[in-house]
């Protein structure tokens, strides 16, 4: 196992990988995105309720961007073999199915609750 892990490390060295500078850059991105979310929630929406319908899609989009940065760079998935990345990402797509099914179902629950 030891010899194998050595080899893995060696090959990783050939690829572009996480350096200290890059880590802090990603940390800065994550902080900025979180700050934007707070700005929307605390500064923009209270003064402009007409933008409320754009707020939720904006939060979800920003959350997905944050998720991308965490998984791709902090969890290093961007630098792994494509096969490994696909075997993680493709099953995750099934979640979209559950979202579609349950949001559709929840519209019927509204009438059940009355």
């Amino acid at each position, binding site marked *: 196992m030891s010899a194998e892990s050595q080899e893995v490390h060696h090959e990783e060295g050939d690829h572009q990988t996480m350096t200290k500078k890059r880590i802090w850059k990603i940390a800065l991105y994550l*902080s900025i995105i979180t700050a934007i979310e707070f700005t929307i929630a605390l500064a923009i929406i209270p003064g402009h309720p007409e933008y409320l319908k754009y707020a939720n899609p904006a939060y979800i989009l920003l959350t997905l961007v944050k998720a991308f940065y965490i998984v791709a760079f902090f969890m290093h998935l961007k630098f792994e073999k494509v096969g490994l990345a696909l075997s993680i990402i493709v099953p995750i797509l099934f979640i979209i199915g559950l979202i579609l099914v349950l949001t559709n179902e929840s519209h019927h629950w509204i009438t059940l609750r009355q």
Partner: protein
Amino acid sequence: MSTAVSQIDEIKTTPWSGGRSPFNVEYGKIMMWFFLLSDAFTFSSLLISYGALRFSASVWPAADKVFQSVPFLYDSGKPLVFVGIMTFILILSSVTMVLAVEAGHRNSKKEVITWMILTVLGGFAFLSCQALEWSHLHHEGFWWGSTPSLHALKEFFAEGTGTDVTRHLTAQEFANLFFTITGFHGFHVFTGVVINIIITVNVLLGTYEKRGSYLMVEKVGLYWHFVDLVWVFVFTFFYLV
């Protein structure tokens, strides 16, 4: 006999032709990834159930009215400030973790120890904040199976929405979902902190130095980043949306 090998008998050396790991990743790391995948399904089931219940409710407690205290400083009037602090703590502890992994690649034991200890401290800070958040909500009357009185509930909803019956019903759903989901996440943070402490002790003892690789730090790092990843979603769907 000719030494030339016909094309069909040639040994293939592509990643998928056998004899080696096509993903080029150590076994334990692949298993950590697949465990996290299954955990992602668990958390998304919880969050999607929350979404479905919330979509089907006519009223729902307003996040900026429920979460507006900062422990020891403000009792009310500061929406989202405390959870903002919690979010930054968790992001920062994720950064220190990835710095520990980076130091491990350079086999720098001293740096790994520093960053691992900071990561553990970040984990404890987050858990303390969550304990304060829970006790605050509990004192207001929210818990599994209990809500504040019908009169007190009014202040947690946008003005003039719902009736006593609908407010009580959805406040209960909100409380159950909030404590279950943040509790499940908090349990992950807690186990993450315990695992991080074990790994830190191992680094101190020189276990990985002898092994010649800090791959274990990388594996627990994956788990720790996942905990941060889940919080990003919990934060959005409970506090912002």
